[in-house]
């Protein structure tokens, strides 16, 4: 970490601590930084005001503020089956959802206000009223698929795949605005989903996008759907090929 980054982290932390003084910045043994402590918040949604306090930990990545921090709840209040990864990390939204929200305000305070607090609010709301205040996505691949159907505003999994494929393969080929939109609507791309696709591309997290594309693909396959060729990503095909080759080199050929 260089000096500018450290100063930035300090500045972001100061902004956060002004609102939430129970949170403290500390340096971790590996040289990265974390924010730990008591988050005491008040929030309203749709006229319903709730407040609570949670013991949380945020871990900053080495490229902070480019990537969002990771959040954990360490007071053992949130159970393993409430939207977590590996029982620990809080899944505030889908990975791309987090990136999209975080992109608007890449800072600790932005993260806490726009992502963490709404998540904690929905947990408190659920416990109080028995249902989620603004819904939730299903776990796993199904949830990723749902999130894109919502984002693109289409119901068809194959249409989603077609759009995601264009995104993921944009390294290989630029998809022309006058070509028909991959969603299958018949309209030109630039008059249909081009903007939505461009917004995702602007976030510059190709790896995350690729893994979510894979999730939707997997889910479609488990549903027994036939995948048309234009939905199959060349980037993914190449990566799988490289992976197969690596495995082939690693293990000796078996005798049958």
């Amino acid at each position: 970490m260089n000096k500018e980054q450290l100063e930035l982290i300090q500045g972001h932390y100061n902004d956060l601590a002004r609102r939430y003084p129970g949170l403290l910045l500390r340096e971790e043994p590996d040289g990265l930084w974390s924010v730990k402590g008591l988050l005491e918040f008040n929030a309203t949604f749709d006229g319903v005001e709730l407040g609570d306090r949670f013991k949380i930990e945020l871990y900053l990545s080495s490229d902070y503020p480019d990537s969002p921090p990771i959040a954990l709840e360490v007071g053992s209040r949130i159970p393993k089956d409430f939207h977590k990864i590996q029982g620990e990390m809080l899944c505030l939204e889908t990975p791309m959802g987090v990136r999209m929200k975080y992109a608007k305000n890449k800072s600790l305070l932005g993260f806490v206000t726009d992502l963490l607090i709404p998540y904690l609010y929905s947990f408190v709301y659920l416990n109080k009223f028995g249902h989620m205040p603004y819904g939730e996505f299903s776990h796993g691949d199904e949830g990723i698929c749902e999130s894109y159907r919502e984002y693109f505003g289409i119901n068809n999994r194959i249409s989603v795949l077609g759009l995601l494929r264009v995104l993921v393969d944009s390294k290989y080929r630029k998809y022309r605005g006058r070509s028909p939109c991959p969603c299958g609507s018949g309209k030109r791309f630039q008059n249909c989903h081009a903007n939505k696709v461009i917004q995702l591309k602007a976030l510059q997290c190709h790896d995350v996008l690729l893994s979510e594309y894979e999730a939707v693909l997997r889910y479609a396959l488990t549903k027994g759907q036939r995948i048309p060729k234009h939905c199959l990503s060349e980037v993914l095909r190449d990566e799988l090929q490289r992976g197969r080759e690596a495995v082939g080199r690693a293990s000796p050929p078996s005798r049958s």
Partner: protein
Amino acid sequence: MPNNFKDQYNENLTRIGDALDISPSKYQQAVERYTSVGNWLKTGTYKGCSVQPRIYPQGSFRLGTVVRPLAEKKESDYDIDLVCELQTNKTSTAPGTVKMMVGTRLRENDVYRKMLDDEGRRCWTLQYSEQDGVGFHLDILPSVPEEKSVIWELIDSGVPMDFADKAAIITDGNADRTVYGWSPSNPEGYARWFDQKKQPIFERIASAAKRKIFESNSELFGKIDAVPDALVKTPLQMAIQILKRHRDIACSGRDWNIRPISMIITTISALLYNNEPDVYSTLKNIIEKLDAHSSLFSPGYPLHESLTPLHLIQRDTEGIWHISNPVNPKENFADKWHENDNQKARAFFQWVLQVRKDLIDILDMADSSRILGALSRSLGEGIVRKAMPEVFATGPTILVGSGTVKRPPTVEIKNPGKPWGKPIE
């Protein structure tokens, strides 16, 4: 600013000072350790000495300004300085010989031989590891009494006889220990000078303080009188401890060579101390006067006329900075401050500004929910947590006066995303 606000802050600072200090039981342990080493050294035979060496602690242990080590960092041991003054004189025994004689005596003891570290420039170091994980470094400094003629020089230059007559000089080796010299030091004189600065307040608070220590540590002390004077802390000592801890945290990770040294922090604080009865007033006075000295950076090195008679920090016509040892005026603690375009001087005054922001100006903000967070940042979360555990149990809002609980700002949730999770494999 309401009075009870300032009282509350003082109370917090005092509790933090307590938490920074060495615990009475650890202090007793340290005294036991260095008394044993002292006894071993006293019973040795040394060429040119007809009487036993004088053994006495110096530095923060002697002054009562020990600061608990930062546990997260590597140096998590307490540092104890012990002077071993051989009763010979500097003309008849070379410094290298004095150093070696003490080292040899230590090695004659099987236990100490195993604990000996590599030879230091001025000391021999014994490493103690303790069961509770917090150990000691015992630095033994071989020395001889100062020559009478030099002592008279000191007295002539204005040092009171009481502080000059026990002056000692410490052996000082070069980087590869091939050449040894004498470093004029007068640790005993300094300690006495420091004691005198805190004496009036000490007398006022001693019996109440000892009673309090006795009551919380009754298994350690047979009766109140057995509580050592060294455990009674005056606001001067607490202020120094807080400043040292602030320095430790603010300057951690930075260049070790330019951080403000404890000797300067201690000397300046003691010189400025005006018998203030509480830590906050003590700190405020010290920091404000120090900050005012930053005028010395301007051309001509101007200084406000009220500050000149203090003889705190001065600059001569060549721009060399001076902070004199009050019991050895020839020793200049700031002799290297001018180097590299006044690098150390600038580091010092930057630190002073930081202290002012973190510990003094913070009170003007009249927003006590921020104070706890700020103190944790500048003095360490661990120590604040330890000093005020009840605050962390229920949340930072407890700090605010009586009754009113401050609520955090309300966030209006707009366009929330939906939580998502991966099923546990």
